[in-house]
């Protein structure tokens, strides 16, 4: 489509069509995934629907391969990446981010009876994280910790779910993951089985990724999000999914 | 003249298999080639059928050149022309080469129907007539693996005869057959010749050769030793 080819702002075109395409990894509970009926649901999904309703736009959720997300965006297959998308410096070079709407921590999870109580205890231990996730990036920002791990490497697995299973199998000693996701899995798998350490690998923020040329679209999303923060709609959505208002 | 072979040569791995073979056959004539095992008889037949390329010499079929020698090389026409030419020749292989996935009847009618556009009914009738003459009526729907050695050989003969070519080549057509059937085959071949076909037979059976042929050529180690006339050839 023309969107990828030139540097024109694509918002008017989107408005002409009357719908916007949001790309998401539909396996990514609880931010965006499918329920039993195959409907795309989730915290980010509700948020996106509300934001674009306020702009008179319908939302089409396009499932994508998460590792191809920026390519999907920049070839114009999708108009926004909105799926627990962590703001990083590298990503800022490729896409434009909205202001953060959620804060997240990179937490360390162990089995409940583990002897690991702090980051220091990770020395010579096996630690896993999800492949290509911001958890890996966050750990790499503390190279002295990474090099103290067994073999000096992080084990990367395909999904957080598998990381938790590996933990239970006893082949790894700890998992580093997004707090929001981690809490979701812990609640699904049994709260009593796990311990979440005080120490973490830093905070980070979720934002919405837009093509750099689509400045008007960015502004429209920001405006709607601000309104929702003020009138309490955002808090409502947060409470629905997390039982708490964690919106920023 | 239907077939004219002029001093053809063929070697395998630099070892000569046939040397300077020349002979001719007219329509209605039956010619037998006799020679010890390994003498090059099958090789001659394969050269005439274009299955083996001669190293030198020329072969003419119904007045058209299958190959000719130029500057010590044997020149062949295009594959298409070759195929056209070859449709004048029928051949019964020493190893029969039946199609294992087709029944006896299907083996025989395959070429008439799919190569020469004969109507299926006509092809079938002709095939059954031939099978009947060869004592194989019961085996119409058998597959080759269900046949005895002699039965296979007879099917191969029937398959070739169904096409009515101008020249028919038989490579040891009676090797697996008893005297009675050999006689039946002889009668069939004679009938073909009476209808104007030229027939070339390879055989070890001297009695059979004498009974059936107008002429016999003796070869050994790839070379013609001698030729004898058995019966006067009338139609010439």
């Amino acid at each position, binding site marked *: *489509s023309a969107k*990828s080819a030139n540097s024109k702002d694509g918002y008017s075109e989107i408005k002409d069509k009357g719908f916007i395409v949001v*790309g998401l990894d*539909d*396996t*990514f*509970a609880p931010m965006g*995934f*499918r*329920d*039993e*009926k*195959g409907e795309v649901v989730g915290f980010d999904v509700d948020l996106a629907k509300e934001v674009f309703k306020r702009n008179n736009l319908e939302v089409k959720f*396009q*499932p*994508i*391969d998460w590792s*191809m997300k920026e*390519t*999907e965006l920049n*070839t114009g*297959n999708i108009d926004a990446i909105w799926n627990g998308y962590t703001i990083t410096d590298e990503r800022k070079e490729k896409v434009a981010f909205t202001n953060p709407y959620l804060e997240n921590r990179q937490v360390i999870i162990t089995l409940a009876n583990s002897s690991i109580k702090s980051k220091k205890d990770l020395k010579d231990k096996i630690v896993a994280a999800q492949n290509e996730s911001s958890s890996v990036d966050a750990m790499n920002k503390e190279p002295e910790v990474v090099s103290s791990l067994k073999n000096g490497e992080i084990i990367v697995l395909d*999904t*957080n*779910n598998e990381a*938790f*299973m590996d933990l239970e199998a006893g082949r790894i000693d700890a998992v580093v993951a997004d707090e929001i996701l981690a809490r*979701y*899995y812990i609640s*699904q*798998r049994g709260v009593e089985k796990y311990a979440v350490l005080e120490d973490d690998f830093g905070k980070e923020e979720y934002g919405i990724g837009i093509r750099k040329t689509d400045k008007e679209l960015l502004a429209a999303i920001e405006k709607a999000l601000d309104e929702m923060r003020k009138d309490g709609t955002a808090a409502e959505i947060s409470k629905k999914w997390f039982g708490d208002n964690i919106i920023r | 003249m239907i077939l004219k072979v002029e001093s053809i040569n063929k070697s395998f791995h630099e070892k000569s298999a046939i040397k300077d073979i020349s002979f001719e056959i007219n329509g209605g004539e039956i010619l037998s080639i006799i020679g010890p095992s390994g003498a090059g008889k099958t090789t001659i037949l394969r050269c005439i*059928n*274009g*299955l083996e390329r001669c190293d030198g010499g020329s072969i003419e079929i119904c007045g058209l050149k299958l190959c000719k020698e130029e500057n010590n090389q044997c020149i062949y026409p295009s594959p298409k022309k070759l*195929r056209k030419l*070859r*449709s004048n*020749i*029928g*051949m019964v*292989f020493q*190893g029969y*080469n*039946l*199609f*294992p*996935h087709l029944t006896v009847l299907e083996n025989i009618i*395959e*070429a008439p129907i*799919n*190569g*020469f556009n004969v109507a299926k009914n006509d092809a079938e009738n002709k095939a059954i007539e031939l099978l009947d003459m060869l004592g194989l009526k019961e085996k119409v729907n058998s*597959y*080759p*693996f269900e046949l005895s050695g002699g039965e296979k050989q007879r099917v191969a003969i029937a*398959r*070739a005869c169904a*096409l009515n070519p101008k020249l028919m080549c038989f490579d040891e057509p009676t090797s697996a057959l008893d005297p009675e059937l050999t006689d039946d085959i002889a009668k069939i071949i004679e009938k073909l010749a009476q209808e104007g076909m030229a027939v070339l037979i390879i055989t070890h059976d001297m009695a059979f050769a004498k009974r059936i042929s107008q002429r016999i050529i003796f070869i050994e180690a790839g070379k013609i030793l001698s030729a004898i006339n058995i019966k006067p050839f009338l139609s010439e």
Partner: protein
Amino acid sequence: MNYVGTLMYSMLVGLATTIEIFLLTLVLSIPLGIVVALARLSKIQFINLTAQFYIWIMRGTPLLLQLIFIFFGLPLIGLTFDRLTAAILAFVLNYCAYFGEIFRSGIQSIDNAQYEAAEVLGLTPVKTFLRIILPQAIKRILPAISNEVITLIKDTSLVYVVGIGELLRAGKIASNRDATLLPLFVVGLFYLILTAVLTKTFKGFEEKFSYYR
């Protein structure tokens, strides 16, 4: 058991996509595979080398990369396909190469005597191939074809990379959502059923071809 029931809807939707891609690819790539085999066996140098090159590229790179190339790469030079078209295109191009090599093995294994018999009987090369060589070749390669077909049914899951959801994806979604491996086992069961059907079908073919030796 009730839980498995709740999975069914999305699984069946995914299954439909899986089967659609499977059938489309099969119907297109088997006949084209025969063409590839013939090209690969051609005595014309240019055709032969082209076929070898094509087979090399298609077998030499992962289907996943080929999907990415066709869907994300070709638009850069102005060739844009929608998701399903791109997927089918990539699958057919890829599987043609594999089927081509299998058909080649079958065709080459037929005794020369069969060609010679057909030739002296005056059958054209086309007729010889279709009526004499191919039927005998197919009998011999059925198990290898069955291997490839069964690989295909599972390869269909690669379409996730162009954003098409199918059976395996449906399982992964449920597995991640509900933090359990069970949905993946259900997916495995579906694949097992599909494979059982295919195995049975191929066994049927093999029996059909066993009338001769």
